[in-house]
């Protein structure tokens, strides 16, 4: 299989499991990209995830960046299209009949069942990203300090991310 079709296969599979957006998909993306296909290291993947935060748009932009790194410009279009296509077709079909079952009890039950799974997945994403970004005690300090700022202050997250990058660039970290 060519690299582009491998990228398409990986991301099309992820599409229908993307409850909770890209954040819930990070463990599987990392498993596929790092462990299964050996396209990059876990550190490089975490750096791409970080870079994606600097772009506007949906929180799926890390998908385009992985495509770019692995398959160039066409790789970026393939991964972005592949992650969107299956879920978009499903949304198109369901949106036409949604009124019929939006109050159905099985739908309420399924939504309640999905909630803790999504929370578990995003926690797993956090754990794996922390594992691959804690390269030394200074990176660990950045994680502790910024996590505190994200959770306990109302500062704009982009401001906190920017401050962390500047701190690193001037040589206080890394």
């Amino acid at each position: 299989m060519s690299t582009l079709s491998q990228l398409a296969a990986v991301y099309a599979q992820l599409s229908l499991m993307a409850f909770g957006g890209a954040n819930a998909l990070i463990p599987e993306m990392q498993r596929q990209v790092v462990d299964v296909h050996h396209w990059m290291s876990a550190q490089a993947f975490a750096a791409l995830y970080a870079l994606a935060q600097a772009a506007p748009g949906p929180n799926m932009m890390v998908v385009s960046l992985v495509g770019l790194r692995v398959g160039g410009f066409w790789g970026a279009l393939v991964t972005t299209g592949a992650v969107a296509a299956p879920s978009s077709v499903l949304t198109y079909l369901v949106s036409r009949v949604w009124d019929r079952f939006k109050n159905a009890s099985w739908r309420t039950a399924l939504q309640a069942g999905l909630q803790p799974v999504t929370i578990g997945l995003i926690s797993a994403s956090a754990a794996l990203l922390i594992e691959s970004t804690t390269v030394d005690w200074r990176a660990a300090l950045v994680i502790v300090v910024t996590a505190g700022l994200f959770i306990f202050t109302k500062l704009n997250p982009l401001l906190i991310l920017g401050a962390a990058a500047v701190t690193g660039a001037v040589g206080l970290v890394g």
Partner: protein
Amino acid sequence: MEAITTGETASPSVVDLFTGFFIVGVYGFGGVLPWARRMIVEQRKWLTPVEFTDMLGLCSFLPGGNIMNVTIALGARFRGIPGAAACFLGLMTAPVAIVIALGVVYDRYAYLPPVRQAFVALSAAAAAFVLATAWKIASPLRGKPLAIGVAACTFVAIAVLRLPLMAAMPVLTIGSTLLLWRFRK
């Protein structure tokens, strides 16, 4: 026309749909949803607040990026498949172009020590951001031991055992749904 049921006469063309979401894509730093709601409900009045919440309910229930699903559902509602394509491409064009440009610039300068060090710190902070997200969305689990158990099982299956999501996700979702339904209050 379904739009008539709102009492509104909103009837955006394919071009309107593209440009509306194009602007949302450009502005949407740190989360697109607030910008999308502003454009759809407040500025262009394509949907009433209730209709928007309803559509968002559908789009959060289904897999895929919430906002990507909104582009499909809203575009299809007004202009069928061409409308859905227009909204989706409108939303994605600018962010994908910008992120590709960022990726190219990063690849070119990643070897420079200040850039490398900036990314060590930025990656750590981005990981902390996901941790904070997990912390915040976990608050509805308080006082629900069964749901906490499901979240813990998911965490172990994915982060510790590193099981493939294709295998783990259906089992966890079905198991969780049946368990929580059986012991619902």
